[in-house]
């Protein structure tokens, strides 16, 4: 976190020149599929992890969103909303390529690039006046948009937001989707806040909105005008109140690094099963995958979490009974090999609800530590 101003006498909107640019791709996976297959352009398209009715949509195109399809809509419901919806399975190689190319483009403009996800990045131009060579950030933003279209394809569009901190840059990027470019400064901030709802602010969910509402803060403008002490002592009852006070005014409080806390995988079964052999097979494949990811990051996990959704026998008079179950254990030694993770996962899975069919399985390692040697532990195999 950078320099924070003295707020004891109240604080106005950050007056410095905007130097933070937020860029995200529109409906990344669906748009990439429409770029790859020109026949899909202009049609409702949705990407899912697997082509089954029980999975959910993870990326709907803008055309699909017009039918009310959102991230998390079950495939079955999405097809009911839009019978001509084209549902595609994820193609990770394609999305990884798009991610790599946009990172390369971003890094041509500033070395301070932070990718927040596969399709969302922050470009920090603080102290880059010489590199910019007199160009404004708006010009740079337009150039990046043109390069994305030129190098990745004409269907690929990005939203660009420019402001004095990450929060406002992200807010700006979301103002005119798709293909927007907006700048938030001290001169237009209140006007923009005046046009938005509380939940339009990134990071304000239903619970936060309810908390703010309970104190009479029902609009972004009222949020901006709220006293720092009231936010800290009564609304958020933590340092979060102070952070929101600064964030809303364009001061940076979100430039901290993050560390990996868990490595895991989630899998929805095509055919729900109670067969122990099939469950073991799924757990083995997932454990190998989790182990591979841990080794890739040079990590090992002492803790293992295994969870799942189980459904009861099929019924003809209504939906089958469904329940969630999980188990976790902190082992004396850290594991990074797939076989060991599998053995530990099976130990936990032995406690799963008997006789119920597995629908969704999660295997996740926590309490990560550096995997500093390939030496096998004498205690491996012991619980």
């Amino acid at each position, binding site marked *: 976190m950078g320099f924070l101003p003295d707020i004891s006498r109240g604080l106005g909107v950050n007056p410095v020149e905007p130097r933070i640019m937020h860029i995200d791709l529109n409906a990344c996976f669906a748009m990439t599929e429409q770029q*790859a*297959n*020109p026949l*899909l352009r202009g049609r409702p398209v949705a990407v899912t992890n697997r082509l089954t009715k029980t999975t959910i949509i993870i990326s709907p195109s803008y055309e699909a969103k017009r039918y009310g399809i959102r991230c998390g809509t079950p495939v079955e419901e999405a097809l009911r909303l839009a019978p001509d*919806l*084209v549902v595609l399975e994820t193609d990770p*190689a*394609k999305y990884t*390529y798009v991610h790599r190319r946009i990172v390369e483009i971003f890094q041509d403009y500033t070395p301070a690039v932070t990718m927040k996800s596969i399709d969302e990045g922050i470009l920090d131009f603080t102290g880059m006046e010489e590199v910019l060579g007199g160009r404004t950030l708006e010009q740079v933003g337009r150039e990046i948009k043109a390069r994305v279209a030129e190098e*990745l394809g004409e269907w690929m569009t990005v939203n660009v937001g420019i402001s004095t901190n990450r929060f406002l840059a992200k807010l700006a990027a979301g103002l005119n989707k798709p293909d927007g470019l907006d700048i938030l400064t001290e001169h237009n901030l209140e006007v923009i806040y005046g046009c938005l709802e509380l939940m339009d602010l990134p990071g304000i969910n239903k619970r936060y909105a309810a908390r703010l509402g309970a104190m009479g803060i029902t609009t972004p403008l009222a949020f901006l005008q709220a006293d720092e002490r009231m936010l800290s002592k009564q609304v958020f009852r933590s340092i979060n109140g102070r952070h929101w006070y600064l964030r809303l005014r364009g001061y940076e409080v979100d430039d901290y690094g993050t560390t990996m806390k868990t490595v895991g995988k989630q899998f929805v079964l095509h055919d729900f099963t109670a067969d122990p052999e099939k469950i073991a097979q799924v757990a083995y494949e997932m454990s190998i995958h989790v182990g591979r990811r841990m080794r890739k990051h040079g990590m090992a996990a002492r803790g293992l979490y295994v969870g799942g959704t189980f459904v009861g026998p099929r019924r003809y008079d209504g939906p089958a009974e469904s329940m969630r179950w999980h188990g976790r254990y902190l082992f004396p030694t850290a594991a990074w090999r797939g076989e060991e993770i599998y053995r530990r996962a099976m130990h936990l899975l032995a406690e799963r609800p008997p006789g119920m069919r597995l629908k969704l399985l999660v295997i996740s390692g926590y309490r990560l530590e550096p995997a500093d040697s390939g030496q096998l532990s004498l205690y491996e195999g012991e619980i």
Partner: protein
Amino acid sequence: MVEIINEPVAVIASFGQTARGNAKVVPHWMQWRERRYRLMTMGMHHPERRGDKNVHIFTFSSDDMAFRLELDPEYLKWTLMEVSDGLPS
């Protein structure tokens, strides 16, 4: 609807460089099952890992069909992996 094909095909392509100096390959015509298709609209070109090597994936569309072509750079072999009409399955 997407149909998996996985058949070798003959392709006429041009090889060159982009303005930034990267290699550029553009397929123009494809012969598949004794019929020629003009590959009109380029979708995307991206590498994909196959074991210890990268293959190049090209997606193209003709009048009413989209194709997913794979180029094995080691053997310069083209394979038509999928065809699609862009309609729901």
